[in-house]
């Protein structure tokens, strides 16, 4: 039952207030990106919620770029390959170890996740081209890091503008070193957000990992036992260990997770994924492309799941189990009723009274704003506003399945819009990113970073929900929020 902490009229007024501040052209455009959604809202929002289009210039969008989507999200976590930030120094530097894709490995020896490899373009490289330099960089990588399993070239803006032929470099280099060298055309000006970077990265995995352009990758894959229970986790970047707690549930159910995409992932796992019986997809937005490809090319079915909070975890476990035999189904029911269920009930018993009735606002990437809604509801809280940086129409459609109270849904929000929402609706918690964090806190609104779990986590899975509940409580019930106004100014 929706709590209806905010009425539809209130929510609609906030939207009007937001729009009234814009110049005409921007106003007309931004109106298409905002809706107030409740249970009466059409479940097919494709026609009403504009998304995945260019941000208006100068409005202070939160979005990143295609390079961030490829290097920062999809490819970067593949731990035993080396990812070259190809172009000037900044992109690699700013994204260096900034995303907490946890992995196990000897960094600098057999894994390279928290390192920044860059071609550090200088003016002469822009003028004369960087292909020769790139060839030399690959040679130097091979000499210094012989245990790498392959290399990706993550293009930054200038590469696509100066006409470098990184594909040719990659072709020659991969033949020479006999490892995959993957050219990724994820220049930051391509597309409208991180999202195209995800897609481009997915396509390069298709071409260079599965379709063996240049080098046969099969020799990089460990031989695995065939089993009807072999599955792969797709679209979990192991932020703070998310994929590990997810993996644990799936293995507890009796399944074998033979690959993680791409948090704590390896080339071997990527290659072996064509042998799984099922792909389970967490981040639909960033990895639906490769899932669809594997379905077409190898006949592997895929299903979406959601491991945030007991309601969704249990529903997802059952949904996954339903595709397997009775042994798996029985194990799943046992886990839910005897192990996880009681364990998480203790968490709800403790934390729900402390979180009940709290208003939540979320502004994250392309998946979490909807995925986390139920986890908050499990704790008695309600999401009153949510938005995505880079969602597409299919994400908004899915969102309606999660939302039944009056909720402002905003696409590619600007700083101005977020500020208005916080000011007028005064949520008890705002979950967003580092750029939004300190602004909210100055306003006296408790905040959790929902990209990085605010350096906590994991938030996925059973252990994840425990940590999530603890962190939400810590945020909304922190003492310091009572101290924003000095006693001499209190009314």
């Amino acid at each position, binding site marked *: 039952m929706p709590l209806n902490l905010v009425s539809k009229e209130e929510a609609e007024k906030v939207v009007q207030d937001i729009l009234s501040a*814009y110049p005409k*052209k*921007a106003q007309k455009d931004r109106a298409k990106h905002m809706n107030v959604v409740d249970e009466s809202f059409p479940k097919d929002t494709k026609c009403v919620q504009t998304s995945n289009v260019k*941000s208006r*210039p*100068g409005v*202070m969008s939160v*979005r*990143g770029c295609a*390079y961030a989507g490829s290097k920062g999200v999809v490819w970067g976590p593949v731990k035993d390959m080396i990812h070259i930030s190809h172009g*000037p*120094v*900044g992109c690699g*530097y700013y994204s260096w*170890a900034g995303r907490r894709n*946890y992995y*196990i490995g*000897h*960094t*600098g*020896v057999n894994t390279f996740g928290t*390192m920044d490899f*860059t*071609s*550090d373009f200088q*003016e002469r*490289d*822009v003028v004369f081209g960087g292909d020769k330099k790139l060839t030399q*960089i690959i040679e*130097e*990588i091979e*000499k*210094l890091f012989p*245990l790498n399993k392959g290399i990706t070239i993550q293009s*930054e*803006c200038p590469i696509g*503008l*100066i006409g470098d032929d990184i594909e040719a470099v990659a072709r020659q280099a991969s033949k020479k070193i006999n490892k995959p060298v993957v050219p990724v055309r994820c220049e*930051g*000006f391509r*597309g409208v957000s*991180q999202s195209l970077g995800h897609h481009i990265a997915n396509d390069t995995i298709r071409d260079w990992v599965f379709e063996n352009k240049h080098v046969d990758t099969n020799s990089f894959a*460990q031989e695995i036992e065939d089993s009807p229970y072999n599955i792969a986790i797709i679209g979990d970047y192991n932020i703070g*260990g998310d994929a*590990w707690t997810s993996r644990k549930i799936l*293995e507890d159910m009796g399944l074998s997770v033979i690959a993680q995409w791409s948090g704590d992932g*390896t080339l*071997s796992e990527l290659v072996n994924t064509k042998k799984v019986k099922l792909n389970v997809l967490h981040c639909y937005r960033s990895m639906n492309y490769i899932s669809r490809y594997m379905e077409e090319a190898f006949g592997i079915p895929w299903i979406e799941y959601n491991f945030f909070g007991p309601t969704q975890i249990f529903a997802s476990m059952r949904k996954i189990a339903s595709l397997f035999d009775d042994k798996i189904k029985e194990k799943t029911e046992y886990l839910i009723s005897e192990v996880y269920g009681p364990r998480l009930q*203790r*968490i709800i018993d403790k934390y729900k009274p402390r979180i009940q009735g709290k208003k939540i606002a979320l502004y994250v990437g392309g998946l979490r704003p909807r995925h986390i809604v139920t986890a908050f509801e499990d704790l008695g809280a309600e999401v009153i506003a949510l938005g995505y940086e880079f969602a597409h129409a299919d994400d908004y459609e899915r969102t309606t399945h999660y939302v039944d109270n009056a909720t402002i849904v905003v696409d590619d929000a600007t700083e*101005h819009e977020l500020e208005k929402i916080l000011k007028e609706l005064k949520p008890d918690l705002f979950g967003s990113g580092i*750029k939004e964090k*300190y602004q*909210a806190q*100055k*306003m006296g609104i408790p905040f959790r970073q929902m990209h990085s779990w605010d350096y*906590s986590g*994991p938030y996925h899975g059973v252990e994840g929900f425990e*940590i999530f509940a*603890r962190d939400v409580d810590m945020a909304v019930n922190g003492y310091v929020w009572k101290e924003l106004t000095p006693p001499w100014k209190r009314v």
Partner: protein
Amino acid sequence: MGIDKELNIKDHLKLFREEEFKELFRDKASKYESKIPEDEINKIKEWHKSREYHELNWSREALVINPIKACQPLGAYLAAIGFEKTLVYSHGSQGCNAYFRTHLARHFKEPFPACSDAMTEDAAVFGGYNNMYEGLENAYTLYKPEMIAVNTTCMAEVIGDDLNAFIKNAKDKGHIPQDLPVPYAHTPSFVGSHIVGYDNMMHGILSQMSTPSGEKKDRINIIVGFDTYIGDYREIKRILDLFGVDYILLSDPSDILDSPANGEYKMYYGGTKLEDLKDAANSKATILLQKYTTKKTQELLKEWGQDVRVVNPIGIKGTDELMMAISGLTGKPVPEQLEIERGRAVDAITDSYYWIYGKQFAFQGDPDLAYGLSRYLMELGGEPVHVMCTNGTKDWVEDMEKLKEEFPQGKEMNVYMGKDMWHLRTLLIQEFVPFLIGTSYHKYVERDLNDLGFPLKLIRIGYPIHDRHHLHRFSIIGYQGAIQLLTWIVNSIFDYIDNDTKGMATTDYSYDIIR
């Protein structure tokens, strides 16, 4: 917390050490990862310790690994945000803006508002003027700045967008008012580093916002440089106030990057008044607290006919130079209060230097900090053995060579420009020193060296510091700053000694309670 204890909730700090997760990791590694066998990994680690690997690493010509430098716009952002009601605006791809804001916010733990005009593929073909027209109009309407400071990122630079013409046209076409100041700077990321970007933006703002009227006022301009210690801006103002000097601090982000949590968010806080900025050319002199960050700006100040002094007020000698520069330019004596503070700093050094004397240090970071800290370490009796700047330049190296001659331990100092953190890693293995002064990134060097059997200790001074809180609030310049730096350095040495001597019944005779 009681509630937590009862449920025994474990997050990533402890959770994954549980046997069930360790088992899960072993299983994954052995069955699916095609993992390199441990003995092969250990062989590579041994090789990393060899002279051969070091030489191979240092013979790199093209590949850069873990550079300790950012790109130009990041510096431009810091320079621009220190002016009153100024909106930072980036002409180029929008992802760049997200990265700069993120990186700066993580250091200052503060909002860092800035706009981008979000150029995409079509702008690559037609030029970015439409983005700029609409971008300036939207930014001005929504965020009501009194000045917009425009910098560029790679895309705009590669396609050769003309900022001057674009801004003029934006005004002529009525997108923004004619009288709205919109200074700009070209800040290509493939030239120099963030310190050059700082210089370009400072130069852009000063040259476009201020012109000498001919009259010279008895007033000093101060330019701090790419300084990420908020306390430094306050310290220089306090020092000048003690002198009773009329001054203009050109770019003062100490309010906007340290604003109160009081229930209200304001996008603009404090900063150098635009009125003062416009009059800056008429000051008789400018003191710059960083040299390699302000090269182009210094030229402008000279063109303005100002008396230009560059000091590096880190440590005793450096702060003395600042005192004498202020005193020399104004004719005012050094205030008694500051002389007392100098005495306190010297007193603190007399208390502590025995523990620093002869200790060997490595440093990696920006060149001005490298110079000031190396000199101060030598004042403390320490030995800066390896001083490395990824963004060091030849003139910096020359200055460092001269610095060597000022102290007996200077002959032990090795100076490296253009080297990255992977260079530093193998250098420290070959020529080990126990103390490394650097950024948060350098914790990886500390971990790696510790793993390979070298007891390296990191002392965090510089930019960025993302993994420790509030260090950026302090001041590291002036006599007060000297005490602050001394405190960090000497106590890090004590931490190191304690850690090294705490072995029960083996070495803990030296685990002293009195030091």
